[in-house]
């Protein structure tokens, strides 16, 4: 079947999509967007997190046919105007990356948190990232990065009005 949807602001179509195929497979293998990572394929790890109509979801658990006519925003779509999002910059500055595999999912999930909660408490950060597994870092630098991004966004007055995708 053919599936047409908006990805990072551009309308895209994929042909010959198998009916049981996931959104994650379509993004990575058909549309050349490998930022969203494929690991557990059961919603356990969060490394395929993308926005679907502005809500973060595991792309591995969305059937391709379910995104027909809808809006998807992936990690590739977080940077705007050639400039990284404050969340991405904070992850780099804080060294919140080791092997990097979990990073795209964490970025999208953290981006969503900060667009809803300008100055999240540590408990709120932990809860928001509870579905994103990192096997390398022990999470401390990831928490540092989210705190830094929150301070930067709040300072820049960006916290309100950004609904994600």
């Amino acid at each position: 079947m053919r599936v047409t949807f908006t990805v990072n602001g551009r309308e895209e179509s994929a042909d010959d999509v198998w009916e049981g195929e996931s959104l994650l497979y379509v993004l990575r293998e058909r549309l050349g967007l490998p930022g969203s990572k494929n690991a557990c394929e059961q919603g356990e790890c969060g490394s395929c997190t993308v926005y679907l109509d502005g809500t973060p979801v595991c792309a591995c658990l969305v059937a391709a046919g379910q995104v027909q006519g809808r809006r998807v925003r992936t990690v590739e779509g977080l940077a705007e105007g050639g400039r990284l999002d404050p969340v991405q910059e904070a992850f780099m500055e804080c060294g919140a990356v080791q092997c990097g595999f979990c990073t795209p999912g964490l970025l999208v999930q953290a981006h969503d948190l900060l667009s809803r909660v300008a100055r999240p408490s540590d408990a709120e950060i932990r809860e928001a990232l509870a579905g994103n597994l990192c096997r390398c870092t022990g999470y401390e630098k990831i928490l540092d990065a989210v705190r830094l991004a929150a301070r930067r966004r709040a300072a820049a007055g960006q916290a309100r009005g950004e609904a994600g995708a």
Partner: protein
Amino acid sequence: MDFLRPTTWQEALAAKADRPGALPLQGGTDVMVEINFDVRRPEALLDLTGVAELREWSVAGGVCRLGAGVTYATVIDELGGALPGLAQAARTVGSPQIRNRGTVGGNLGAASPAGDSHPPLLAAGAAVEVESRGRGVRTIPAHAFYLGVKRPALEPDELIRAVRVPVAAGPQYFSKVGTRNAMVIAVCSFALALHPAERRVGTGIGSAAPTPLRALEAEDFLSRELDWDAALDAGLLRRFGELCAAAAAPIDDVRGTAAYRRHAVAVMARRTLTWAWDDHRGRRAA
């Protein structure tokens, strides 16, 4: 495999009647796992996310009618006051991403004994509204809905349309045992609802029997013995826990042993009744 995309409820019923082998799909948090892992190859997927009315909920006559497509995130954000037991359970489901997609209707359709919605629905006295094109609407009490492991009381041409949950008239609590605070399939779980006007306590046990179930003898015991104007008696509390544990029929599996589950059910039963009783007494004092 076909991919069916009805946009109205009537179209969905027609699709299910014409293709009884079609597997209903909402948030995909169970169905897509089975497809990704090649555990299941249904002849068709029946995507219900295009049927807008399923995402709605409403309250009338003291009953909340929750469309089959209402997500856990919506239950948490909007129904914590009306359905506190279900909202507490919803907060323990998976992760934020899973709660954004997973639905109470999907939990019912999957009918896993470990599903987190089931104990609070049992304790609250919920009923499941199902429908087919040929025979119309049927309302099945939650306690009659779970027939066996992952076997809901649905005919092949029926779809879950909504679940009707009485708005809480008293304190409700949910408790769940797992290895961490997120991404946990319940080792076992327990829900309790006080129904003060009826001088009755509702219970629901999860992941400690082939199906979610009520602890009926424990409920009857409290109906007979509980003094609604007094502090909780320690002996009564202990007996309540024992009767709840006796109602369970757990097995040993990768998540825990039968003996552990039985023990934990008794502990959760005592704790949830204590929490609810504190609220009940506090409300009366206030």
